[in-house]
């Protein structure tokens, strides 16, 4: 059997090349990770203000950042972030950064703005890997789909309405993609439920400082 030796040689070559490739990716990751998170933070901060259109508030939103460590009842398994806006010391709105884990390909990071009275001001997709031409229409740069949530709340539509029309709900689906909209709708409704249950607590907690 000359093939046994060949198999071991092949396995060794594959292992070696895999190790080298992994080292290459790991080194690039180390080199870029701080820049990438800085870029993501900058993009997030740019998106905060437009997501609160129609709400008047005082001061800067980024100063009122609150980190909710996992586990929590919000969508996503890692820490969620909430930015709070106040007008004359009273709660005006909250912006949630949550992760929908059940997208079609990978996590979908969402920014969800909710006014103090529980009405959604805007939903924006911060990051996703959905299929081009199908699921990627949740992104505002591809279609207006995500705008249909403006003005919705826990009671508008009512409980059963938080689903795509095909599932008997009130919201438009995307042709050729149903997993993606389901994931987004589920994340928004869960966030609304969380906001309703924890509203006073959310607005009274002190801001999470840097490094915490």
């Amino acid at each position, binding site marked *: 059997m000359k093939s046994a030796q060949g198999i071991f*040689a*092949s396995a060794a*070559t*594959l292992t070696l090349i895999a190790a080298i490739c992994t080292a290459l990716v790991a080194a*690039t990751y180390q080199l870029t990770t701080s820049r990438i998170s800085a870029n*993501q933070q900058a993009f997030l901060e740019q998106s905060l203000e437009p997501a609160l259109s129609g709400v008047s508030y005082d001061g800067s939103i980024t100063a009122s950042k609150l980190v909710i460590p996992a586990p929590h009842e919000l969508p996503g398994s890692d820490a969620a972030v909430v930015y709070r806006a106040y007008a004359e010391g009273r709660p005006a709105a909250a912006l949630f950064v949550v992760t929908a884990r059940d997208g079609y390909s990978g996590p979908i990071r969402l920014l969800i703005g909710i006014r103090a009275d529980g009405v959604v001001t805007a939903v924006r997709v911060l990051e996703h890997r*959905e299929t081009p031409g199908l699921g990627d229409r949740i992104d505002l740069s591809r279609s207006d789909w995500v705008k249909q949530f403006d003005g919705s709340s826990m009671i508008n539509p009512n409980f059963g309405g938080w689903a795509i029309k095909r599932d008997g709900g009130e919201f438009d689906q995307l042709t050729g993609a149903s997993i993606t909209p389901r994931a987004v709708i589920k994340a928004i409704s869960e966030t609304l439920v969380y906001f309703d249950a924890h509203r006073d607590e959310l607005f009274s907690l002190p801001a999470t400082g840097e490094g915490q």
Partner: protein
Amino acid sequence: MTTGESIEQLRAGLWKDNPGLVQLLGLCPLLAVTTTFVNGLALGFATLVVLACSNVLVSATRRWIRPEIRIPIYVLIIASLVTCIELMFKAWFPSLDRSLGIFIPLIVTNCAIVARAEVFASRNPVGASLADGIGMGAGFTLLLVTIGAFRELIGQGSILSRLDMILGGDPMAGITLIDGGWLLAILPPGAFFSLALAVAAKNVIDRRREAARRAHMPRNLRRADGATATRA
């Protein structure tokens, strides 16, 4: 390898065996992202870097790789390179990364890259493989940029819009030639029409050149291959 050979490699990639125009490889990204000049240039450049690096790595390791495991090795090398490029785009060109989205990671599936690894790099020395990678990558980029500029001009009436995504700075509107455009060019059918026009244009140019070459040749020297013919 001589300089003449590398130049011949580059010419093959850019024109004679252009991966997009002649081999019709990598059509998915080609058709999907060429809505503007900037998108075409960025994806083309990323593909060129991956193609050149993967050709070099495949060629350098070709003596130690047993033929039965060559395909998994190509996949490993190409996937790692693409992941590195994706991280670099996210770090240094975040808005381009958002604009190209999933198409940067999808460079992995560009069959032009694995085709060059299999057909060329696994059989040739490192220098020639590098020249082949650069030539093929440049040919692909040239086509992406041409189609991107064409679709942008017809579809939006502008050229070079959002150049800031490469150069940095404030958003740039580019040069607007006509206000508004013919939307069809931006939509997916526009991509197919543009590619068809590009392939047709290449065939017309090749035919004209061939005819001109034959017309300049004395009758008794006209031969099918034309290799030894010289002007009288």
